[in-house]
């Protein structure tokens, strides 16, 4: 599997291919902990937040919210303790960048978290890692111990008055815990149900205290922003999407892997066909899901010859989203009805059950998909799916409902033939075919 940068100097992936890339010695030899030193020596928390604002860094977990603004929401005068929580619950299908960032360069995350903690006045931070990534928790624990032994974590970091603890925490197999308020409930020892917003976590988060929850890749971007300066980092990308972005690429490509690209990389077609080695076995490109399973699916006709710019604005203009940056590439052997059914089953399994539209809706969707797959699809079933989706999208408690809806909406719109093929034909205004279809 390929790991590296295309079209820019590697920043996030600078050390991943070095020998012993996990060790603190390798990290420090290659510029590690210089940003923390700089922050502690000569930057006030406000200046740090100002640099992050200037960098136009946007949350890399999926929502793309400006990170500097999120940090700015934390009230400065609150007497309560403040928390920084790293969201390493990476569970979005097609996304595996955080896994390799933590596996190959754990100290970069530690440095990012310490800088965030300094900027926000936090003395305790948690890395919430999905339960399946147990080996990453073990890697992080060892790295934290190394940092502590070197005076880089714990009391009086680098001999200054700044003290901060970093703790690892394990999830236990629930996609919903990647949603930040569900993550906080889980971290408090409860079921991972999302919370009502507002209040946002910046005001009342972990244990009711001001909390910032940031994705792994968001935090690992911070050391470079501090070292280069926010403006210089932003200029690597575009005006509204600063810096570089790490993409995960999987599915039918010759060279799957983790790719760091400058934001605004000029052409998605070139990326898939050249950088990722094109489609194997002489097949044709059929579709791409560019941002993890929750975003709109793109047919090849929306990519080939269209010069789709790979940043937040470019992908929206092309009819999809950056999301978590998980590319799933599909060749012409894939039936989009089947692929959408597969993802819908995922959302049904992962719906937390807290709100009715999502809990009942995803269940109904799967029932309809299964009935169609049994060969009992009715002529108006595509419309039925869209109607159910219409009752979920925007009406669920958290974005999981939207995430379950968008793949279906876009799949039916962009690949109607793949759905029609499974439905019984309409004859004389009546359904043909089997008698006594079971009511679903």
């Amino acid at each position, binding site marked *: 599997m390929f790991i590296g940068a295309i079209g820019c100097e590697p920043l996030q992936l600078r050390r991943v291919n070095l020998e012993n890339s996990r060790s603190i010695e390798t990290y420090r030899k290659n510029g590690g902990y210089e940003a923390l030193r700089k922050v502690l020596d000569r930057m006030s928390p406000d200046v740090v937040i100002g640099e992050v604002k200037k960098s136009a860094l946007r949350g890399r977990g999926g929502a793309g919210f400006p990170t500097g603004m999120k940090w700015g929401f934390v009230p400065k005068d609150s007497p309560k303790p403040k928390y920084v929580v790293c969201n390493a619950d990476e569970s979005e299908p097609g996304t595996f960048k955080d896994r390799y960032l933590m596996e190959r360069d754990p100290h970069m995350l530690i440095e990012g978290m310490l800088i965030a903690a300094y900027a926000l006045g936090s003395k305790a931070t948690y890395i919430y890692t999905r339960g399946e990534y147990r080996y990453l928790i073990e890697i992080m624990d060892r790295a934290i111990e190394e940092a502590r032994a070197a005076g880089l974590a714990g009391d009086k970091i680098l001999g200054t008055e700044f003290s901060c603890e970093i703790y690892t925490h394990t999830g236990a197999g*629930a996609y919903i815990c990647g949603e930040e308020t569900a993550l906080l409930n889980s971290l408090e020892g409860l079921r991972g149900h999302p919370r009502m917003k507002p209040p946002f976590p910046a005001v009342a988060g972990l244990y009711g205290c001001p909390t910032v929850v940031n994705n792994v890749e968001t935090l690992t971007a911070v050391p470079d922003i501090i070292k280069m300066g926010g403006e210089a980092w932003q200029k690597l990308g575009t005006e509204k999407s600063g810096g570089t972005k790490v993409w995960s690429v999987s599915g039918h490509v010759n060279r799957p892997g983790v790719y760091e690209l400058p934001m605004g990389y000029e052409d998605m077609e070139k990326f898939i066909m050249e950088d990722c080695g094109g489609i194997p076995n002489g097949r044709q490109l059929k579709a791409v899901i560019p941002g993890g399973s929750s975003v709109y699916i793109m047919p090849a006709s929306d990519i080939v010859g269209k010069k789709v710019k790979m940043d937040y604005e470019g992908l929206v203009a092309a009819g999809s989203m950056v999301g978590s940056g998980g590319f799933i590439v599909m060749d012409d052997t894939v039936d989009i009805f089947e692929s959408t059914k597969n993802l819908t089953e995922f959302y049904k399994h992962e719906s937390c059950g807290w709100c009715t539209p999502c809990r009942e809706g995803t269940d109904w969707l799967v029932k309809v998909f299964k009935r169609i797959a049994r060969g009992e699809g009715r002529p108006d079933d595509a419309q039925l799916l869209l109607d159910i989706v219409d009752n979920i999208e925007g009406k669920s408690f958290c974005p999981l409902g939207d995430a379950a809806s968008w793949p279906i909406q876009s799949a039916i719109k962009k690949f109607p033939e793949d759905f029609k093929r499974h439905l019984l034909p309409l004859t004389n205004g009546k359904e043909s075919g089997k008698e006594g279809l079971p009511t679903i």
Partner: protein
Amino acid sequence: MSQQFLPDNPLPQEVRVPDEMAVFSPEVEAEIDRHLAKYPLKRSAILPLMFIVQRERAGFLDPPGVAYLANRLGVRIMDIWEVATFYSMINTEPVGMYHLQICRTLSCKILGAGTITEHCTRRLGIKPGETTPDKIFSLSEVECLGSCGTAPMMQIGFDYYENLTTGKVDELIEKCRSGELSNGVR
């Protein structure tokens, strides 16, 4: 959300106040103390502690293990069950010694996860969600494990096995049978 491994007994375990509470070695108690020390509220340690109890109590949360957790965390028995039943990695039923968990989500699926599952079913004589009568193997289909670039894959306990082929699966199963392979529980 947790899978049922006893198909002939689909009802959940009887929830009752147990007569006995699990007892652990000083080493395990020390491990538990290290987790509790991370949080201002003890309850936050519920998931890390569940993994420890599950590991020490033959792979699942049995009533004495649940009673221990409630007592250690200062919560009710029902609070433990409430959390345990939410998370798919917390077992409330016995599982086999080797728990083969095959990813079934899209990237793995289009690269042959179905073939891998069918192959395991044939080799082990059990369907996903079942355990072999000798309690050596359990088979599950699970959702995306973040191994899409190295698909298809499966997890045995906590260990990842990636870029699978049916040949590799045969090797793994043989190594499980001979006891050569770690069951990945820790």
